[in-house]
């Protein structure tokens, strides 16, 4: 691997995990050990609910309400999972959530990136006014629009459709703002060279600007995906048919029908929670950077 070459040339960077910026390895002083103990206790507290959900989901249903409390049932069983799986609803909601989140993310990234490019690099009548209108929109929380938005969906016949869930989540002014700030920092020379070679705006946008902006586009995409996947209020309002519900809405809707079958509730929560946790395991770095980026730019 090429990594072995850097080990010898730049040792400080390779072992960067446990070395501070000054290049020294921190000592395990008593103070630092105390901090570690505190951090581990907090970690345990934060993981406790998740561990409890998994433990309960693996118990036979009859053991879940038994007192005194124990972490394990009389045996480990996947009964709850197979029951939840067989009922089929959860898979339908997973697919709905996946379809809605992916489509929303793609549309958001494309429309916001195009708009941001238009506002930073092109000129047209009314541009300042329109950009001002977009910036003002950052102040409007979508939650205050539920009543008029719902009536609009009724009139457009979009209640209980994918588009009814997707479209109101696409035009996010804050994302345009983040991308405008990024594009302003991209040197114009790169694009001008392409114009001289005869490329049009469209080509320059897709072949030069988009590839250059991959990190910020990834940040916007990740942020949009997480918030769409987790959105509850709007999908909850605009879907009434269980077959069209997203995962969070479907789960809440069905909670009452579970009765007191705690193992099944916990099994479905584990299944519902896993997708983004798996994504997180693979894309930790990008997600962390994306949150920091979009969050800090959200100012």
């Amino acid at each position, binding site marked *: 691997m090429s990594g072995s070459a850097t080990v010898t040339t730049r040792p400080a960077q390779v072992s960067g*995990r446990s070395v*501070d910026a*000054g290049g020294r390895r*921190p000592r395990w002083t008593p103070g630092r050990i105390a*901090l570690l103990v505190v*951090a581990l206790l*907090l970690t345990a507290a*934060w993981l406790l*609910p998740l561990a409890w*959900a998994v433990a309960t989901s693996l118990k036979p249903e009859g053991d879940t*309400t*038994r*007192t005194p*409390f124990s972490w394990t049932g009389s045996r480990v069983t996947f009964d709850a999972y197979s029951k939840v799986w067989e009922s089929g609803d959860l898979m339908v909601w997973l697919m709905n959530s996946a379809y809605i989140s992916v489509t929303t993310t793609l549309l958001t990234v*494309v*429309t*916001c990136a*195009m708009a941001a490019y238009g506002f930073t690099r*092109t*000129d047209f*009548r009314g541009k300042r006014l*329109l950009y001002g209108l*977009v910036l003002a*929109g950052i*102040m*409007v929380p*979508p939650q*205050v*629009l*539920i*009543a*008029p*938005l*719902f*009536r*609009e969906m*009724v*009139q457009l016949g979009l209640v209980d459709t994918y588009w009814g869930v997707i*479209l*109101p989540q*696409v*035009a996010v002014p804050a994302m*345009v703002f983040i991308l405008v700030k990024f594009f302003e920092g991209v040197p114009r020379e790169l694009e001008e060279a392409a114009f001289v070679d005869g490329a*049009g*705006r469209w080509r320059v946008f897709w072949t030069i600007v988009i590839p250059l902006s991959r990190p910020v586009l990834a940040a916007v995409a990740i942020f949009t995906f997480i918030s769409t996947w*987790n959105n*509850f*209020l709007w999908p909850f*309002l605009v879907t009434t048919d269980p077959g069209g519900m997203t*995962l969070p809405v479907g789960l809440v809707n069905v909670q009452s029908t579970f009765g007191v079958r705690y193992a099944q509730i916990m099994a479905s929560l584990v299944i*519902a*929670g896993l997708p983004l*946790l798996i994504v*997180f395991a693979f894309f*930790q770095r990008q997600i*962390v950077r994306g*949150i*920091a980026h979009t*969050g*800090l730019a959200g100012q």
Partner: protein
Amino acid sequence: MTSTTTAAPAPVAKPGRGAAGRPVRGVRRKWTEHGLVFVAPFLVVYALFLIWPLVSGLGMSLTSENITGSGGEFVGLDNYAEAVRDPDVWSSLWNTVWFTVLSTVPLVVVGLVLALLAHQLRVVQWLWRLSWFAPFLLPSGVVCLLFLNMILPSDFGLADQLLAAVGLTPEIGWLTDERYAMLSIVATTVWWTVGFNFLLYLAALQAIPAHLYEAAELDGAGAWKRLLHITLPMLRRTTGLVVVLQVLASLKIFDQVYIMTGGGPDESTRPILQYVYQQGFTGYRIGYASAVSYIFFALILTVSLVQPLLSRRRAEEAAK
């Protein structure tokens, strides 16, 4: 011939303005040369699903419309007058503000403490991120149902079991007792979302130049002094940002309350968004619901407009 006659006005036409379809230097300009083409897709969706509802909602708030959009009569400011006199508007606004106050403090402080710990330790960063940030990635439905089924059942619920393990049997109605319901929702929210603030603080901590600490260390400043005189002052801007983002996020509380208590007990946790939902979607009074929405919107606008003014004044004072 034609190329010479059209060549003259070409330099006058500014790039992309009114030039669509006009021959320039003998080449037909493509439609994509116009700036509006880039902005249009966003603007169409934006106008349809943000601007238009914002305007039509204002119109609706002046009518007695029901949810289907029929039977509406112009009633002027009657809805607003009614809302101001409606004790449910005030109590749900108060619940919203109270939740915001209760949740913002721990969400900012705990987020900062977690970030300081992770930054100071510089080991197993993945573990801190996994345990403290990962809950943020769970849908509210999953989190709320988890806590609902974990803390609500008395006797065998986890909360009661943990208290029993240390010898307490308080028989607390975590979500059914007015004294604890809001606190339970706050605790759930802190567990769920503190990771976001944790990450913002962690990013800010990593951006503090190391030489500041080195210089302080040479001057003999201990860990505590470095925290008080370097780290915390350097984080002031981030703290301002985190507080504002948190206040705006907390004001929009709906999911946790709707799923965990339904607004109860005795409407003691019902936030303003749930009241809007009840009036508009289950009570079918969408005109009135819109009026209440706009009162809520005014509250949010005030918060988001006041903050920049405050931070500007602070910046000016610092510059003096």
